[in-house]
């Protein structure tokens, strides 16, 4: 199953209105993404790390999430120092290491993790469904919100169909190996997954039509942001302003 483990919980962050969190995440991310200052990136990383800690994620899950993202930054650490060039070169045995390359890798790592922490604290604490509705209320075109919600819904369906087929294959003694039989079986599995998901999508569409759907998703009333939400938003915007202002001091 595709889970949303970070969305479970009842901290300050989980209780906030999704729109408020979306705006806050956009503001902080914008600053972190555009900055080229070490000070901004590292302060941002620390601040968003604190926000993340306040949202109380499960440590093991959190480490796995951070680890998988940093697999990419690790790749940068391995390549950039060797390929970046510049004047400041340190020779290390037979390798020429570019200091600018190291600096860039470090900056990207800080920015990436800052944005990751911010997303985990602010966005992962909402369900994708709520994010979709939140985006729609913030003015994203209805069709796009619809697309987001249904792509997400369909992802589950495809995943389930695939698991069902895979289970069926395994129950009949299928063990993957490096053989033509394995590759053929996997191509059948993928093909059947697509066909079955398509069929299911069609049945879901029929179910919608039977219930009077005519292309327009009408949302149910959702609670309005409360005073705490606005205070939270102000706090978050102050953080992003602070970060944006650091280079000018």
């Amino acid at each position, binding site marked *: 199953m595709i889970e949303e483990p970070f969305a479970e919980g009842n901290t300050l962050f989980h209780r906030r209105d999704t729109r408020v969190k979306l705006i806050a995440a956009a503001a902080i991310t914008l600053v972190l993404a555009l900055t080229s200052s070490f000070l901004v990136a590292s302060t941002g990383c620390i601040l968003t790390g604190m926000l993340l800690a306040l949202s109380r994620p499960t440590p093991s899950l959190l480490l796995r999430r951070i680890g998988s993202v940093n697999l990419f930054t690790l790749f940068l650490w391995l390549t950039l120092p060797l390929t970046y060039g510049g004047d400041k070169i340190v020779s290390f045995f037979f390798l020429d290491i570019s200091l600018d390359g190291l600096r860039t890798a470090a900056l990207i790592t800080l920015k990436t993790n800052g944005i990751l922490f911010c997303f985990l604290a602010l966005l992962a604490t909402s369900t994708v469904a709520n994010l979709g509705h939140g985006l729609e209320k913030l003015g994203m075109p209805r069709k796009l919100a619809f697309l987001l919600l249904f792509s997400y*819904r369909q992802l589950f369906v495809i995943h389930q169909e695939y698991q069902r087929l895979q289970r069926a294959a395994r129950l009949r003694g299928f063990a993957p190996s490096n053989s033509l039989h394995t590759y053929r079986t996997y191509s059948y599995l993928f093909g059947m997954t697509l066909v079955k998901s398509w069929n299911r999508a069609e*049945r*879901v569409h*029929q*179910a919608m039509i039977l219930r009077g759907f005519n292309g327009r998703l009408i949302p*149910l009333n959702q609670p309005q942001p409360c005073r705490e939400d606005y205070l939270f938003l102000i706090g978050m915007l102050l953080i992003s302003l602070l970060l944006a202002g650091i280079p000018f001091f």
Partner: protein
Amino acid sequence: MTTLPPLLELRNISYSSPGQSSPLLEGVNFILREGRIGLIGPNGSGKTTLFQIIMGLLKADAGEILLQGKVMEQEKDFRKLRRKLGFLFQDSDDQLFSPTVLEDVAFGPLNLGASPEEAQKISISTLEHLGLKGFEERITHRLSGGEKKLVALATILSMQPKLLLLDEPSNNLDPTTRERLIKILRGLDQAHIIISHDLDFLASTCTQLYAIQDRQLVRCEDKQVHSHEHIHPYGDKPHQHGT
């Protein structure tokens, strides 16, 4: 005195699956007189197909569908029909698509023009009626099979249809949920047609049995002797099969 036309009538419905040489249904006639009907027939005999034809999801090769005496011809007619008939799919996963239970149950009423407040009210009371109080914010795809079935029923009941078409509703239900469903169905005012292979289930929820036989819909004799075997969920306690 003129009698009201029957809610649903089928005249000479014939249908062949695409790519199949022999027709699946041929000259099916049916008038909904009694309120609680069971429909049996072997796998692949066209029971689900018949429901899809009635709802206008499939187009019959020949024949007419009448709703309250009026022939349904175009998509526009069927759109009207779908307000009066609720179709519970065999697989509830096909029927639930909104993130939360409440949104799913409110989907139909909202489409039929209810205001968000009204839709919410109808949905909550429908859920309550089915014993699903407190399920409003649950995530639909994380419910158990039995819960999904009941929520799917709620999504249909919230549209307040006059006739329910239920496709194998008791499939894969545990004994408790099955009993609960029987109780719910017996308590509803709506007419229903239930497809099932579970004769005990039909015996407790229906007063009249039809079967698909030789591509036709035939009415079974009122008091047909039938034998059945089943495993009792609770050993040897006395039990009733209903009438």
